[in-house]
């Protein structure tokens, strides 16, 4: 994958966006001013410099390249630090530990930042439209409900810690060209219509993968590829299967996933459904591209683009780069297959929040930035960014006629090609939510480490789930 984009491309892309949507700095100010607040409100923290720390994600890259309109609008200087997520969590935690606000605006991963450190984040309800500060345009109800719940809250809906900022979610990405070309033959050989959708079961996914492994196809060597490196990605890849099979990390998985819990109780990974899921996952990975165990989400996308295999569970935002690479137009998107329980599409989105130690003008400026960065206009600009951009977290953006039109090829918003799929994936019955618990990092590590041992043939699925449960329980103190 690794699409290369020079800074110039991004500016070009945004320039194009500006021309198309008349979204220049001046008109943005007018547009925002009209919907939200007057010039004086925007200028109230003029001259301040704030620090925004973010994972190096496409939406932040797009924003970093397009800060000028915000500066003109508000007179605020935003310094952006982009880091790998692990490094970001380390810096944010140390910042909280130092009792200061070196970083005012924080990319608050729900699992790694909000769950363990929500006390360090400001309750945004105390800022939204209060004391002369602007309110969130179109209200927080405009955010996709499951995303607002997962990214914004902890434990209950009293305090709002972050506004949904990006929303990568795992879906089924496949070679549309191959599925079309071999459709009839596959249907005949397999005995079912193989067209990817949530009507296909995981068992059928396995059969499709196996079919591609055979000698029928010369374009690809394997059927399926996975992000099964001993890393966060392995837990994500497995969680889709786990939840589809009805397995849960904890009792009340929906609640622990959506709002989170400081005391989730004992893990339920040793229950029969979870063990079935692990058995299936082991079976699936045996016929997957053997490269899988060294790939994270990037590696597997790269291999997919290199034509190693026909399909993979992958974050939907990879559509942006796949559609600008050599597979342009050959890629299809669908919700992940269904298990005995449901189709589960793991959510990996994140919100942005404000450091609780920020005060005075820093705090004001931080809020102005958060409002601007999650506004419909900024999200639209992100869609057009050549960087692949992010995908919107707001319902209203998906309803813009221009955006709706872009969800079918040819399109200038490649990420929108997944729009129909995402509408299903983010539905509350389809979304897969990891537990949001303070000890998530320990739980995550326990799960991907034990799964990695299982895939290496060192232990059985039963043993794997049992050990993972024990380690999680010892981390949560249950």
């Amino acid at each position, binding site marked *: 994958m690794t699409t290369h984009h020079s800074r110039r491309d991004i500016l070009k892309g945004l320039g194009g966006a500006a021309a198309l949507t008349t979204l220049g700095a001046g008109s943005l100010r007018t547009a925002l001013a009209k919907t939200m607040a007057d010039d004086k409100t925007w200028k109230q923290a003029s001259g301040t410099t704030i620090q925004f720390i973010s994972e190096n994600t496409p939406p932040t890259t797009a924003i970093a390249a397009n800060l000028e309109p915000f500066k003109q609008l508000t007179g605020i200087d935003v310094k952006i630090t982009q880091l790998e997520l692990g490094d970001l969590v380390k810096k944010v*935690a140390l910042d909280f530990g130092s009792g200061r606000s070196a970083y005012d605006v924080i990319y608050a991963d729900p699992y790694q930042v909000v769950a363990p450190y929500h006390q360090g984040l400001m309750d945004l309800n105390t800022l939204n439209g209060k004391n002369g500060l602007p309110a969130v345009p179109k209200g927080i109800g405009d955010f996709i409900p499951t995303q607002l719940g997962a990214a914004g809250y902890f434990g209950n809906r009293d305090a709002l810690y972050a506004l949904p900022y990006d929303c990568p979610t795992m879906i089924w990405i496949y070679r549309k060209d191959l599925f079309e070309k071999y459709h009839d033959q596959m249907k005949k050989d397999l005995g079912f219509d193989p067209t990817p959708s949530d009507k296909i079961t995981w068992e059928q996914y396995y059969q499709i993968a196996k079919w591609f492994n055979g000698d029928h196809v010369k374009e690809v060597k394997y059927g399926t590829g996975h992000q099964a*490196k001993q890393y966060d990605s392995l837990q994500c890849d497995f969680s889709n299967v786990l939840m589809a099979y009805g397995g849960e990390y904890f009792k009340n998985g929906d609640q622990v996933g959506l709002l989170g819990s400081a005391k989730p109780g004992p893990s339920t990974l040793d229950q029969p459904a979870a063990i079935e899921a692990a058995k299936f996952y082991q079976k699936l990975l045996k016929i997957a591209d053997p490269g*899988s165990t060294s790939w994270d989400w990037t590696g597997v996308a790269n291999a997919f683009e290199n034509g190693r295999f026909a399909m993979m569970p992958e974050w939907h935002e990879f559509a942006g780069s796949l559609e600008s690479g050599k597979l342009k137009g050959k890629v299809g998107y669908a919700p992940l297959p269904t298990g005995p329980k449901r189709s589960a599409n793991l959510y990996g989105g994140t919100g942005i929040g404000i450091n609780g130690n920020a005060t005075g003008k820093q705090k004001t400026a931080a809020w102005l930035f958060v409002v601007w960065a999650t506004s419909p206009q900024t999200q639209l600009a992100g869609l057009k960014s050549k960087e692949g951009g992010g995908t919107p977290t707001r319902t209203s953006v998906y309803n813009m006629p221009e955006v709706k039109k872009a969800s079918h090829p040819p399109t200038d918003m490649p990420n929108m090609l997944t729009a129909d799929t995402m509408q299903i994936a983010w539905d509350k019955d389809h979304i897969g939510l990891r537990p949001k618990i303070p000890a998530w990092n320990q739980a995550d590590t326990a799960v991907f480490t034990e799964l990695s041992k299982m895939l290496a043939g060192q232990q059985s699925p039963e043993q794997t789930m049992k050990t993972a449960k024990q380690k999680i329980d010892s981390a949560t103190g249950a």
Partner: protein
Amino acid sequence: MAGNARRGGQGFELAMMSPALILLAAISFIPLFTMIWMSLSKVGLIGGLSFDFIGLDNWRHLFTDPDIGSSWILSLIYFAATVGAEMVLGTLMALLIHSLIKGRNFVLSLVLIPMFIAPIIVGLLGRFLLDPSFGLYSWFLSATGLYDGNILGSVGPALAAVIALDIWEWSPLVALIVLAGLTAVPTDILEAAEVDGASYRHKLVSIILPSILPILLVALLIRAMDAIRFFAIIFITTNGGPADSTKIIPIRLYDIAFRFFDLGYASAVGLTMLVFSIVIATVFVRVLQRKEAVV
């Protein structure tokens, strides 16, 4: 020296040492005592750092944690394999370069390049070369039929690969140091041996190696110190996987400190690493001193 001491005491020597030692004490004692204190506490982060004294809980945990035990065993293997291979390979490289008459400097400067590349970049380069879908080395191994699997994703090969990357980066350092020793081997003895018709192997074993032994120990000490501390290459390639097969102790320490933020426990683990390094260094220094006494 005795004359030195008579001439006005040791004030000058102390004055020379004091700036460095005061600075060193500040940047080493403060962290050390903080670590000891943290290892006896439960450390909280929110609203500024807080320490709850919990006695020896972290230490008790340390000695009953099976993961720590297995990481230590793996670390010893990794330590022996990297340092051992670097010593052998570095010495061989030095002997080869030393045997060159023309172009010695040129070859040497080429061989030295890897150690100038930050381990983090070496690790990424390793991923680039070993990626199953486009890596040059993966392609080479599979095209020649030597190995067709997934190097960084399989239990044995992944460990071998991260060891090889470390060897690639740091053998040149050993080669450089050993080469310095070789240039100082007394040539008259070598020539005398040659006149006597001694074989190369005989010269190597009875003249060259004994005379570079002190410098080999210096190289060993430098490498050993860092082999226990450094973890960037593994951090960026496998990060401990697959199946924990590359999770050496510093990687686990990093997880405990900066993924789990169990800072008290991390301090306990860190202190045991420090003790291990000191023990290893003591052994090496003893050997070094004994050799010097003999020479």
